[in-house]
């Protein structure tokens, strides 16, 4: 039995989640826009491939977003912990470049629980932390029917409080929410 996506998404607040895969950036933007508050995007200053706010605008209003530029991952983690614990932000997005150990993952989880905001780590493939609440693999799909489509496959690979599943979804610009397209037949 495949669970309903609405029980898993929007992501549970007060927890830290993980996303990876080629379309993880879009997943993060959608997850942040559904939290309805200011969000902080933390990345290391040397990393290339920056966000383009003009491309982000259909998913997440850039006026709601702050970005933090750090020197190395230790700073990124400290900033993320501080921001999660404070609770002034609804969503904290963190791009990590090396795997988190158990202590770091757990500290982020505790900070998110104290502040009540959603944490989301953008991880390279295979660098998941054991402490995360859910882990999503997000890949884009070719849509033969429609131009300018945002068809994606969301697969939940790890879920601490439920089962796993996969959905083909598309972002609808008019209603500003995700539409599940068709059962992929898992």
């Amino acid at each position, binding site marked *: 039995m495949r669970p309903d996506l609405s029980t898993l998404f929007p992501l549970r607040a007060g927890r830290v989640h993980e996303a990876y895969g*080629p*379309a993880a*950036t*879009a997943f993060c*933007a959608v997850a942040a826009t559904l939290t309805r508050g*200011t969000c902080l995007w933390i990345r290391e*200053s040397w990393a*290339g*491939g*920056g*966000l*383009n*706010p*003009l*491309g*982000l*605008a*259909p*998913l997440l*209003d*850039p*006026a*709601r*977003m*702050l*970005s*933090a*530029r*750090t*020197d190395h991952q230790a*700073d990124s983690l*400290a*900033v993320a912990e*501080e*921001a999660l614990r*404070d*609770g*002034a*932000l609804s969503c904290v997005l963190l791009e990590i470049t090396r795997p988190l150990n158990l202590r770091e993952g757990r500290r982020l989880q505790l900070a998110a629980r104290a502040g009540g905001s959603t944490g989301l780590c953008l991880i390279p493939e295979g660098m998941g932390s054991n402490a995360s609440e859910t882990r999503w693999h997000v*890949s*884009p*799909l*070719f*849509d*033969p029917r429609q*131009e*300018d*489509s*945002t068809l*994606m496959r969301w697969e939940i690979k790890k879920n601490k409080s439920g089962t796993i599943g996969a959905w083909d979804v598309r*972002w609808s610009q008019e209603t500003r929410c995700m539409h599940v397209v068709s059962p992929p037949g898992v």
Partner: protein
Amino acid sequence: MWFPRLASDRILRARPVDAPFALTLNRQNTDRIHCLNRQAETLGLHRGMNLADARAFCPGLVSQPARPDLDARFLSALRRWALRYCPWVARDGSDGLMLDITGSAHLFGGEEALLDDMRAQAERSGITLKLGLGDTRGAAWALAHHGDTTGALGPLPVAALRLDEATVTALQRLGLRRISDLTAAARAPLARRFGPGLLTRLDQALGHVPEAISPEPEPPHYAARLSFPEPIGLLPDVISATERLLAPLCDKLKAQEMGARKLVLTLRRVDQDSQQVELRLASPMRDPARILPLFERGLGAVDAGFGIDVMRLEAVAIESLPERQIGHGSRLRPDQLNDLITRIGTRIGLENIQRFLPADSHIPERGFVIAPAAFSQPETGWSSPRPRPLRLFAPEPISAQGPRPPNAFRWRRMMLSTGRAIGPERIAPEWWLEDDSWRSGLRDYWKIDTLEGRRLWLFYTPQNPGWFVQGEFA
């Protein structure tokens, strides 16, 4: 006190020039001489002269543009210096000071000794100074500008009465060249001819009409300091001392309706070494209860050594922060986010927390600007005529030929095949800006939906054939 060469003395003090020197100011579309040194004056140059004429007179003239704002700051520094002679010092025009030395001359051993001291001090610091000592403000001005420090007003020219050019010329035409001529003339015809201004100036100079010297108020100084009878070293002690320093500072800020933007806490240790804790705030603030927790991280890093015996807190940068009506009903305090930005800023630097602002350009990399969040406000107005990629990277070349997008290509060691190509969208470089990455000329952008799923932004440069990948869509 009159500083006839204030502007050029200010420059020459820092960098002496042994040549004719002039400062120029652009007035009425011409560079004119604003101030000049003695050497230039002896060569026949004068103020208000055209710079080109002056160069013709004197080919070795060294000149540089004048900075009236810095001159005004220099004069206010001189005003502070002049407070050593008496507490009642006012600025007089743009190049003079007026001192009321009544009751303070005896501290220097009489008026003569006081004047000698002023002259010696000015000479030592390389400033040309002319002094005038009189019973009234007008008399002192006249003696400084047109006389010889002390003496009678009678033989001085009428220009010494602080009159405008037209009045002086008219008086000279009437044959009234000296002040004594004016005092001897009948008052009523003069008042009819020149209005009350002339007689007021004359009476002020002679002391028949009082004229006050109004000293400027000292600018408010946002600092507080605390010295201890015994050195302290424990963190809770230092924090509570900071709290005691913050209270008077914030009261002062509140009284002036200002808020601190940058605070510096200097801790002096018993071994005379001093350490500074700097706090940059994301928004102007004057609430001690909110500022104190923001200091904690900085104070934790201080090495107390053998103990701290003096602490000084100064608001280095301040901004106006008027009183605001507080609202109700909002769950989050609006300041909470600013406090968070400040706290994060103490770790990674306040300018590293940024936000995106829209910019007016078709070039993808310049369609937005990145500004520090603490010094900007969020803006709306994000729109692009066509979909734009979510991520932009530096153009990555792929091997393909011809102006049509390739059916299959290799990118980042992946074989991709085109399922759908949308385009082209031609973007021309902005020729008015120098940009190396747009040297290859026009770009035809294509959105390629690959059968593998990825949606990429490719461009072709027709003037310099080549294919590149620049972005990835959602």
